[in-house]
């Protein structure tokens, strides 16, 4: 177990530097005027230019700047926006919204997705299975932009079941979370179904039946516990698309979260903020996946005692 954790931590260090480097290089690498990259298409005065050069160490080489930037990230110093406000203070108010939104969406995904997937797997070939397969294909195919508006229009504006814009409370986050979760939900259902079908065929499921256990117990304890292993891994990876989806959903519902802040930075062409937020999101993604890997070891003793 200890060796496993150490190995994963080492891997993560490599991936951390790799990804931050890639993100940073996408912004500042290769040719082009870095000041213009930072400030976008806006005209930049000579004074601003001098200040930005100084502030972002643009007179130094790429590696020096990258080191400076990563060093800042590691110390928790996120740097400043183009308008020189500390990015951390910009984000301070935004995190809670996104956390709540993503958390709610995850709950929806896990509860509904795993539930429906198990049911479809157990009743393989039945009506519920066929309906879920068709429905999930549609949901997977419909882009989140469309899904977001469709949900907002139908459930919010038409049926008035939910508020259509953020009102600061948890209730107004339910509809956005539902829509955000929808995408991962569909894939979760399908993955769960597949692994449940596989595990139902496994010898140990036969053994469990031969012991005289009820079908509910065979599925609910023996099969489910094994089926969760790949599903949990998938959910970790899926957090990435959940974060990308949050950018869209927060904009549709005017939720002042991290994604909303990122989109605004994109529109105001605020380079430093864009890079920092994306790096942060990527780091969160990495950390969550590390956590998922550890959870994987908890769920699967074959890894724990390898």
């Amino acid at each position, binding site marked *: 177990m200890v060796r496993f954790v150490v190995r994963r931590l080492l891997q993560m260090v*490599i*991936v951390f530097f*790799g*990804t931050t480097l*890639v*993100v940073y290089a*996408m*912004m500042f690498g290769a040719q*082009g*005027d870095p000041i*213009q*990259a*930072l*400030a*976008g*298409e806006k005209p930049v005065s000579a004074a601003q230019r001098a200040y930005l050069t100084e502030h972002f160490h643009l007179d130094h080489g790429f590696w020096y700047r990258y080191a400076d930037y990563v060093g800042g990230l590691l110390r928790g110093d996120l740097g400043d926006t183009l308008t020189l406000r500390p990015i951390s203070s910009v984000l301070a108010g935004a995190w809670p919204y996104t956390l709540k939104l993503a958390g709610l969406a995850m709950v929806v995904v896990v509860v509904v997705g795993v539930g429906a997937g198990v049911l479809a797997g157990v009743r393989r070939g039945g009506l519920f299975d066929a309906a879920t397969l068709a429905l999930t*294909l*549609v949901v*997977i*195919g*419909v*882009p*989140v*932009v*469309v899904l977001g*508006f*469709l949900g*907002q*229009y139908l459930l919010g*504006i038409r049926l008035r079941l939910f508020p259509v814009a953020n009102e600061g409370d948890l209730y107004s986050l339910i509809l956005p979370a539902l829509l955000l979760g929808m995408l991962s939900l569909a894939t979760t259902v399908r993955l769960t179904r*597949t692994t449940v079908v596989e595990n139902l065929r496994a010898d140990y499921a036969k053994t469990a039946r031969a012991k005289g256990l009820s079908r509910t117990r065979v599925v609910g304890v023996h099969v489910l516990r094994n089926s969760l292993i790949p599903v949990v891994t998938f959910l970790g990876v899926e957090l*990435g*698309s959940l*974060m*990308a989806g949050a*950018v*869209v959903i927060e*904009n*549709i519902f005017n939720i002042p979260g991290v994604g909303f802040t*990122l*989109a605004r930075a*994109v*529109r105001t*062409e605020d*380079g430093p903020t*864009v*890079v920092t937020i*994306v790096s942060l*999101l*990527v780091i969160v*993604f*990495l950390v969550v*996946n590390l956590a998922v890997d550890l959870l994987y070891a908890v769920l699967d003793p074959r890894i724990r005692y390898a």
Partner: protein
Amino acid sequence: MRSGAWRALRRRPVFWVPVAILVVVLAMAVAPRLFAGADPADCTLDRSMAPPSGAAWFGYDFQGCDVFARTVYGTRSSLLVGVLATALAGLIAAGVGMASGYLGGWLDSVLSRLTDIVLGIPLLLAAIVLLHRATANGSGHGIWPVVGTLGILGWTTAARVVRSSVLAARQQDYVQAARMLGAGHGRILVRHIAPNAVAPAVVVLTITLGTFIASEATLSFLGIGLRAPSISWGGDIFAAQARLRQAWWPLIWPSTFLAVTVLAFIMLGDAIRDAFDPRSR
């Protein structure tokens, strides 16, 4: 394509439905005039937000442009971005996957780690950074920056698939035999190994094409994808959403077209995969 898989495909509606949809979509992209009578650039503010009527079945948007005409003309850029970006991603994937799988060794390690890292960054987030950079450096808001961005970021899954097919093919007896007989690397790759990677890569790339079209719409929605004068479904969706309470029709049509097109590609990819691997059901 293996003839068995093709025979399995031919009999299934899940294959023909998306194919039919995509043929129509393709026709719209090639000859939008055939589908929309109105000119998408013919906009006057005095019919701003006019609801659907006999003259304009889909109504007019805020600018007073015909929604249907804009939606039909938007097909071209969406499809073009999707196809070109997929072609780029496919090329990169083929190069990386074959080099990685065939040559192996340290090159394989390096390329595999690179693939892991790029795959580990959510596509949309990376695209935002890269596109921001591209537009800021004066590449404009046409289709090329979007194509480049999606292509450069979206090759990873396909590359993994190519790599594992190549690895599998390399072990085959006939490939070993060809090598013994002194066939060159190029010949072995092209004649014996590449064909094995085609089917799985096509499956992945078909689905990728769908996600690229969706990504383009999302990026345009966020304001960093295509911009006027390019007509884009994502851009139109963004324009329409601000006034969703006043009128739904400018939103519904581009959304529907977008959803149906993306869905068709994903269904097609699914159908092809099932045909090649019946066990996956």
